[in-house]
């Protein structure tokens, strides 16, 4: 075929999709503890592996490095610092985001895995790696046990 077709739908075709109606994703055993503590206590939990001296945030029931079962959950507090960040100016459809959205990895201390979230109440030009931040949560009555119960992290 040497004819150039500009519109894909001009050729004989069958329309289809690969999607199921929807999926139920569950948070798992450790995830359940994390989200219930966030909703009810306003806590951000981690799980500590003593053998590897590593704290997973959010928690897990196993250490992926040594396979130990993790049963020690601890409240990481609300304060952390920025490990990496980006300022997004366009969404996935190419529309301009105004104001831009700021995503960051937040560390709760040495030997912990960082948490992905957003930054808020901050001038984009003042953000840097190492910026000290704190979590801003939704009021308790609005919390649903979701990662968005944390609104964003702001400088402290």
């Amino acid at each position, binding site marked *: 075929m040497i004819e150039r077709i500009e519109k894909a739908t001009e050729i004989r075709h069958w329309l289809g999709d690969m999607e199921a*109606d929807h*999926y139920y994703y569950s948070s798992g055993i450790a995830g359940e503890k994390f989200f219930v503590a966030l909703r009810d206590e306003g806590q951000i939990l981690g799980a500590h592996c003593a053998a590897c001296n590593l704290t997973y945030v959010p928690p897990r029931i196993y250490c992926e490095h040594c396979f130990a079962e993790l049963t020690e959950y601890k409240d990481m507090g609300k304060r952390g610092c920025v490990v990496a960040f980006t300022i997004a100016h366009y969404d996935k459809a190419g529309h301009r985001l105004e104001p831009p959205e700021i995503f960051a990895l937040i560390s709760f201390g040495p030997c912990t895995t960082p948490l992905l979230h957003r930054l808020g109440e901050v001038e984009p030009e003042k953000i840097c790696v190492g910026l000290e931040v704190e979590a801003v949560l939704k009021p308790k009555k609005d919390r649903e046990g979701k990662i968005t119960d944390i609104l964003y992290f702001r400088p402290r």
Partner: protein
Amino acid sequence: MDLKKIRKDVAVVGAGMTVFARRLQETGKEMSWEAAKMALDEAGLTLKDIDAVVLGSAPDAFDGVHKKGEWLLDGAGGTNKPFMRVYTGGGTAVFAPIAGWWHVASGMFKRVLVVCEEKMSSVQPHAQSAFAHIWDPILDRPLRPNLVWIFAMEMQRYMHKYNVRYEDIALVAVKNKRNAVGHPCAQLADPTITLDDVINSEPMALPVRRLDISPPSDGASAIVLVSEDVVYEHTDSPVWIEGVGWCLDTTMWTNRDLAFPKFLARAAKMAYEMAGIKNPRKEIDFAEPYDPFDYKELQHLEGLLLADPGEAAIMTREGKTQRDGEFPVCPSGGLLGVGNPIAATLGIKIGEVYWQLARKAGPRQVKKDVRTGVAQAWGDLMQFSAVVVMRRR
């Protein structure tokens, strides 16, 4: 096949599996970890001892996560190790262990962990939504087939060509659901089920009735494979993988011999040649063929050359395939009795043959002394089979 190129003998030294059930709470990673940890514990190994990890899981559409292999990696123990995911639909249950075998047989790795996971409860409204997309989008899908209809046609073809009675097929479901009573992971065990229960169960797509099928499930299973170089550090009585084989028939399922699975016979001959088996009916003591439907156990026994076409139904009627019969088949309880979380059925195929040969099957242990067993799984668009022969030397 050049058998001289196989450098190392490979043994199974541990196996683990989770309960098979609709497990809404646990994540696939958590189930993978549970099974993998059990297998390592039985082998007396820790994750640090493992050189490479093979993961088996059926299409991403079930868990609803793309790159499911990489997503499950940390639960399967693959972090910072050589890792690969394989899948051949339901055949993954036996094909992932074959992939693990070649990692060790090649001489590249001494200790390999194989983990299989499936979480079919995520996809809504039913796993058939995902199965709907395995068909040809132009010739098959507009007619809106589903798997049960297709298998019903295959079952009918099998019954017609070899003059097999439905009542003899249904006896497989009775046997396997009773066998599963001793299995700690069983979802579908039923100590009191009768032939009438199966015959009178709800028609799905005739001749298939509800109790002829194993429904969707969630679970994970794992095994540890080690090289002959280190096997005696871990056990005094290894269970060896003696032969492996796999084969695919055409994707145009309409063009296949639906009564006799030729692709399986080819896979079995490959595995038997590697294992040095000349007369499988004499040299193999028991079998764990893939039994998502009761007629498949019979068809697979015939494809494995352990019965003539149509003869497996007669063996079943005569009680020969019972756990204490002369040729036990699916002593685990199979997919019909334990459950069918696709790839995770590793635990009731390879896992069961290992436990039987290691005499660790507890209440499921077959009566006669068994030295050689065969495990088989079937999958992709009903066109694939994988066969593994295992032996206690």
